[in-house]
């Protein structure tokens, strides 16, 4: 298993390197990054200063390695707009987005796993179709419409939830639902499929023959096995949600990484944009690696492969 993990680690590092190269190349999408940063009234003098400060006057490979070297040491660059180190801003906002992502994941799991179990107990029944329907319906609506509709009903019309901000835990309810709803179908289907498979296994038949209660059968025995792929999917989806939170954070005035990314894009704060894309990608890579490792540990078949 160590060999497998080591191979996967090398692979993960290579992916990380490639992602950073791609992210870095975003700098040159507009031609001259100094103009993008300097903007409006930048004189030639200003542009030269910018170029020197950010090192844009050096050859590209040198720039890349400098950037990478700095990033590894924790220096993600300097935000032109905020005139501060990028890392400070990002790590101030990261906990907020992580909290949001975590709550969203929790919501998704709490909704999807029971639905998946129920659907698996009676496959192809009306219940199964309804469960699938609930899952699919939410995915067909643009997320901002869904979020704003919730705001309309829960905050304006019924007044039971606050509109925006992050002051209390109640502030996280709607954003978590809006964000988490999108991964619900995937988790539900996986749970259902896993449960279906496990329920037909000998292991379960034996337990049933032994007279184990229905409830215990479902949750202590079957779900425990079926949940394995779900957990790794959840870990991966967490990373995906961190990146997809722009719209939700903007709508609910949540001051997280997604909103920072959006603002950086609007004010063409290149170093910040790049750093965020890089951080999120690295997070995702880390989570997938973690998911792989866990799968390997739990499922002996994979280790040997």
């Amino acid at each position: 298993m160590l060999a497998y993990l080591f191979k996967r680690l090398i692979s993960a590092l290579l992916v990380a390197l490639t992602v950073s190269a791609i992210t870095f190349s975003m700098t040159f999408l507009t031609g001259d990054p100094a103009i993008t940063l300097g903007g409006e009234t930048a004189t030639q003098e200003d542009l030269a200063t910018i170029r020197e400060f950010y090192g844009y006057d050096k050859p590209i490979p040198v720039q890349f390695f400098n950037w990478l070297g700095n990033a590894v040491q924790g220096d993600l660059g300097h935000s032109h707009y905020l005139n501060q180190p990028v890392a400070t801003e990002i790590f101030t906002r990261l906990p907020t987005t992580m909290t949001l992502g975590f709550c969203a994941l929790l919501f998704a799991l709490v909704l999807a796993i029971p639905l998946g179990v129920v659907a698996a107990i009676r496959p192809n029944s009306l219940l199964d179709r309804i469960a699938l329907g609930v899952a699919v319906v939410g995915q067909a609506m643009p997320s901002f419409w869904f979020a704003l509709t919730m705001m309309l009903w829960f905050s304006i019309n019924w007044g039971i939830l606050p509109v925006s901000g992050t002051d209390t835990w109640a502030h996280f309810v709607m954003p978590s639902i809006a964000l988490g709803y999108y991964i619900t179908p995937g988790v539900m289907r996986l749970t259902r499929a896993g449960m279906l498979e496990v329920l037909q296994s000998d292991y379960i038949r034996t337990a049933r023959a032994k007279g184990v209660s229905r409830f215990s059968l479902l949750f202590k025995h079957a779900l425990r096995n079926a949940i394995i792929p779900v957990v790794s999917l959840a870990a991966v989806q967490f990373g995906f949600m961190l990146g997809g939170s722009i719209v939700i954070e903007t709508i609910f005035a949540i001051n997280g990484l997604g909103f920072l990314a959006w603002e950086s894009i609007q004010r063409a704060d290149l170093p910040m944009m790049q750093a965020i894309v890089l951080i999120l990608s690295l997070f995702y890579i880390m989570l997938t690696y973690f998911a792989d490792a866990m799968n390997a540990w739990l499922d002996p078949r994979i280790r040997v492969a």
Partner: protein
Amino acid sequence: MSEVTATSTALSPRRMMLKQALRHRGLLFGGFIVVTIVLIAIFAPFLAPHDGYEQVLSRKLIPPVWFDSPKATWDHILGTDHLGRDYLSRLIYGARISLMIGFSAMLISGVIGTTLGVCAGYFGGKVDLVISFLITTRLSMPVVLVALAVVSLVGSSLTVVILVLGFLIWDRFAVVMRSATQQVRNLDFIASAEALGSSTPRILFVEVLPNVANHIIVIATLEMAHAILLEAALSFLGLGVQPPDPSWGLMIADAKGLMFFDGWLIAIPGTALFLLILAINLLGDGLRDVTAPENRG
């Protein structure tokens, strides 16, 4: 699970699938809706009562005809938007643009993803290693963010949006095609084609592709829905299709401002989009059920 009786009157696998398809309610419903919308899009100029681009500011924000309002009129069945443009006409023309975006992005990503996936599955070894690596890299990047960043730096237009989406959403094609090709790879007819000395491209196109085609179709429908939704998200943030072109995503984004007051402005294109996405998903799911049930879930 139906049994296949081994008699001489047995239907070919293809005919069996067709029969199954015709009985699959999800597939029929989804397919019907998609076809209807496509037809509406094609015949837009004949169906739209007005020119969807004509703006008359004095008649802006007329509610749909079923509203209890003095302004409502049968001349504008679905009302008008904030610039006085007929909503029904824009909805009909919008079908064209949304479908076109979905279709084009799907096509581009399909070509990229299928090529990569089939090559990875067929050649295996180092090729597979490199391509899997590419896939993982692509999966690691946050799609919406990258799309936004690129569009904001390069400038948004229909072409840019389609290209950006097409170049970002090929991953599922690649992954599914790869495993489908792997399964087909070791079958006898491939081996005999190779033994006969057929050239590799010939094998790929004549032997492999037709056998994985059903997977392609399934993924294609799902990615089309994905592209349309992504465009709506881009439009919400101001970086999607540009006015005055009426994509449904843009109509929804434009209507967002009055959502709390004139909910119909967002509900109409929103429902249309919702129906389209739902239908495409049902169609895709149905096709998967019928052609490759083992991939379900």
